[in-house]
């Protein structure tokens, strides 16, 4: 059954949801739960990292293939297995369940899945933020305020939903002014071609695809909320504390990959190919992605008070949509630590932005 949908895979890959994985996942739970839990072992020398296909995470695939990750792992005397997972949400769930030590995800999904699930998580590497990659598109309308009263097709509770909330805020509308229709990203492009669908919120390369169609106008995109949709490598905080070498190896590898990527069109072309497009297509996606090629820039971004503000927006959005769990009394239920300060409950910090390892890379100490 699953095979049938793979045709869509190459086209739409970020933050993707599989069709039957939830059911299979649920029914496999008992089998999975029969596997004895690995008790926390302080120091280990073998680790697993997962990633999924998205413009800002393609470097992991390249780094694993080109042996860069292995090289850095060897340097610190550890093993790192890098696994690509086709289904984005599934990869986060696996990380949350403890199957992986680190995983690529957005700031919002990190808060609502592992952190809300009690897994203390740290943003080890801030790779990029969406700078136009996520957009709101209207059919036959040219201004955002025309969205009032419309049905809006998007992947509910994803960064698209967050973008919509922020956009509505900017024109003094609220979510109750529209009807959100949860729509699979795999079917977003074909959904747009039907007459029922008048507005969509989605991400690249789907945005580019939809904008090619008649009547489609981009009325809002993530460039208007720069730095709010952040793509990171999240790592289990406890694992990191007990195994600083893992953090060093990953950060070291990442910035070597970044250098290669920035310098070589061939490297970018191979990343584009791996994500189902070509160099031109990949560069177009990069154009609306603010990559932090230099570790120092990423450190500055994490240190900025803007990040604290952003995480407050994200936490408030997550709280009002029930993503922090039913037990959460307010948006600050889960504490979020950034260098500029802590948002929310300082006694319940479960999401951390820690520039330590990126700083080491910037200082050339790795």
């Amino acid at each position, binding site marked *: 059954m699953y095979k049938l949908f793979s045709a869509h895979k190459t086209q739409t890959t970020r933050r993707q949801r599989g069709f039957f994985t939830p059911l299979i996942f649920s029914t496999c*739970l008992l089998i999975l739960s029969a596997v004895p839990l690995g008790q926390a072992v302080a120091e280990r020398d073998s680790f697993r990292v997962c990633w999924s296909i998205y413009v800002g995470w393609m470097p992991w695939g390249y780094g694993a293939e080109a042996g860069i990750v292995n090289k850095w792992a060897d340097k610190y005397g550890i093993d790192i297995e890098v696994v690509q997972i086709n289904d984005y949400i599934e990869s986060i769930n696996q990380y949350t369940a403890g199957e992986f030590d680190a995983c690529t995800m957005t700031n919002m999904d990190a808060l609502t899945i592992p952190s809300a699930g009690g897994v203390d998580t740290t943003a080890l590497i801030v790779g990029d933020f969406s700078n136009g990659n996520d957009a709101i598109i209207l059919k036959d309308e040219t201004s955002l305020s025309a969205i009032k009263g419309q049905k809006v097709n998007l992947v509910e509770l994803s960064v698209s939903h967050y973008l919509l909330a922020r956009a509505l805020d900017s024109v003094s509308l609220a979510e109750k002014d529209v009807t959100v229709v949860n729509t699979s990203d795999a079917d977003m492009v074909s959904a747009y071609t039907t007459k029922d669908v008048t507005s969509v919120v989605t991400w690249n390369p789907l945005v580019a695809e939809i904008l090619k169609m008649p009547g489609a106008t981009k009325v809002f995109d993530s460039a208007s909320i720069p730095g709010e949709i952040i793509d990171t490598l999240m790592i289990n905080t406890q694992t990191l504390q007990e195994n600083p070498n893992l953090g060093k190896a990953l950060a070291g590898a990442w910035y070597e990959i970044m250098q290669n990527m920035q310098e070589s069109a061939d490297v970018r072309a191979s990343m584009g190919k791996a994500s189902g497009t070509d160099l031109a297509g990949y560069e177009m996606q990069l154009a609306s992605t603010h990559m932090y090629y230099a570790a120092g820039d990423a450190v500055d971004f994490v240190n900025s008070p803007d990040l604290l503000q952003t995480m407050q927006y994200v936490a408030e959005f997550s709280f009002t949509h029930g993503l922090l769990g039913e037990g959460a009394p307010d948006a600050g239920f889960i504490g979020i630590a950034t260098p500029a300060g802590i948002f929310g409950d300082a006694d319940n910090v479960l999401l951390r932005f820690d520039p330590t390892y990126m700083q080491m890379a910037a200082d050339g100490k790795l």
Partner: protein
Amino acid sequence: MSRSRRWINAQPSMFLKITLGLLPFLVLLLVYQYQSDARKAENPKDKLLPSFSEMSAAVDRHAFQPSKRTGQYLLWRDTASSLTRLLSGIAIAALLGLTFGLATGAFPMFDALSTPVITAISLIPPMAILPILFIVFGLGELSKVVLIIIGISPFITREIYLRTKEIPAEQLIKAQTLGGNSSQVVFRVLLPQIAPRLIGAVRLSLGSAWLFLIAAEAIAATDGLGYRIFLVRRYLAMDVILPYVVWITFLAFVLDRLLILISQKSFPWYHDD
């Protein structure tokens, strides 16, 4: 007399049969409980294997308390939406399957005309032509029902066709010697005998119907059991997903039982063999 029976001859008593039947469920529950407790001991907020109390709290929130955002009782609304889609899809698919299966089975000319095309259509994986379905039927309720129809009616058609062909030629000849014309043979000999077999075919296709329903709800929806599961998966709310899965299983079981009951009440001659 104390000679022990061979195991192949040992029949459980009624009490033992029920006990044995329940045993694996009990074991599964205990294993779950144990594993859940173990995970909770390590991380009290673990979401992967929620405790039974967390699940019952989730059921309470979804079934017996109005949603904070919409004021609706989510479980019942989801159930009503899903069942409406499922039952209308199944009903229409059954009617289509009956009509085409009976017509192809009874009339060789119609068989020659339509069986090749029906066979070809039945081989198309419905999920692969979703974009076409959207363009033709839109993204609303219609396309969800249509997906179920397209998903299961070829199977029902084929099943009815085969079952019609199975009715002994002797009966058709006999009916003609009793003065029956084509239409009378269809309505008085074939249709009444096919009716219970249609219920059988529908029962066999229930599983696929659920699968297509959940797939349809995953694609674009604002409510439904499949919608909810896909939505809350976004934040790994297994405390909601697991009760929903159990509820879906229960509904599927009840539907199946109901169909057997209807068949037994309506067509006793078919079941007493």
